[in-house]
């Protein structure tokens, strides 16, 4: 294997900061996009990208040069995103009433607290529907769907990144796709599908 990235990683390992900066330039957009779709938020996405590269840098000695660099960095970034999503989940029931009462529950709190994450990028109405559908995907389908469709990774690569058999990846792609279809059909009355 003689990827440019592997060479850069080896150089960076010896303390070459310019080589590392090149790696950052090669991967920052991909990592940003991955984190942005996973978390639906530009600020958190930036955090994840920074943390990802910091971990890459401090663990360069542990990078196995026989492995594709992309697999390694995707694994680090995906795990950070999954951790972040997990922490975000409140561990109390969403249906529980707020302590103050007045009928407000966690749902309404979350709804009012929701920033408009896509403010930087104008989305068409259809794309806004898709964005919400992706956001609503259960985590285990979300990472697979994003890696497959938005990062163009092969099923095998996704298996390597998420450390799971290809058959599992495949099943999750199918379920994720089915989930999105049903979501779009039920919530928007199939209107989304008429655009094509």
């Amino acid at each position, binding site marked *: 294997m003689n990827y440019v990235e592997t060479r850069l990683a080896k150089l960076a390992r010896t303390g070459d900061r310019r080589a590392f900066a090149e790696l950052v330039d090669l991967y920052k957009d991909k990592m*940003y996009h991955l984190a942005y779709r996973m978390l639906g938020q530009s600020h958190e996405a930036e955090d994840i990208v920074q943390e990802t590269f910091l971990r890459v840098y401090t663990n360069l000695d542990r990078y196995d040069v026989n492995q594709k660099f992309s697999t390694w960095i995707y694994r680090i970034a995906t795990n950070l995103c999954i951790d972040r999503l997990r922490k975000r989940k409140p561990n109390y029931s969403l249906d529980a009433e707020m302590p103050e009462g007045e009928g407000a529950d966690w749902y309404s709190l979350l709804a009012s607290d929701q920033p408009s994450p896509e403010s930087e990028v104008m989305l068409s109405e259809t794309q806004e529907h898709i964005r919400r559908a992706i956001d609503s995907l259960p985590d285990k389908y979300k990472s697979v769907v994003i890696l497959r*469709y938005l990062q163009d990774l092969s099923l095998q690569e996704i298996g390597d990144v998420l450390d799971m058999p290809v058959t599992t990846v*495949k099943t999750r792609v199918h379920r994720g*796709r*089915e989930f999105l279809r049903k979501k779009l059909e039920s919530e928007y009355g199939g209107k989304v*599908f008429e655009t094509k």
Partner: protein
Amino acid sequence: MDCKQAVREMHEFLDGTLTGPKAAALKEHMLSCPDCRLVFQQLETTDALVKSMPRPSAPDDLTDRIMGALPQSRKKASWLQWVKRHPAISVASVFLLVMVSSFLSLWNEDTQMTVKGANLDQLVIKGDTVYLPAGHKVNGDLMVKRGKIQVDGELNGNLIVIDGTYALASTAKISGETRVIDQALQWLWFEMNEMVGGLAK
């Protein structure tokens, strides 16, 4: 084919892994089943729509921010800082330094020839010269220290000559590499690598 199986195959089709006859069977089913046709059309559109989502790029200054947040340097930390941070290892290095000096004096005193290898019976030793005659074969590494080695036969490994000389006849065959170590420090490195290598096993 029933509808349930058809849906499974649709996913395979969209993955790009449905081959000839199976693809044809799916098509045939869909021609006669409007429900499946609709599902397929929706799945296909879902795929296309998800793939067409805009791909925002990272803010322009992110590279600078990332580089700025990295620890000062990976390798360039000055000796002194390093010693301060690793007092225990520093003590060990002083110890190592003492070892090295005693080793160096040993190096200068030790003048005897040493031969190391797996099949020493294949060798002929005369005075300060070791012969590997033609037709003889040594399997594994051969090391000669403070002596001469003449290889006419076959060596199935590395030849390591320490503080000595070697000569290869045209009939000589060496499968590994030949290394000549003629300085005390190089020799020390060699020994340490052997030691560390041995420990790692």
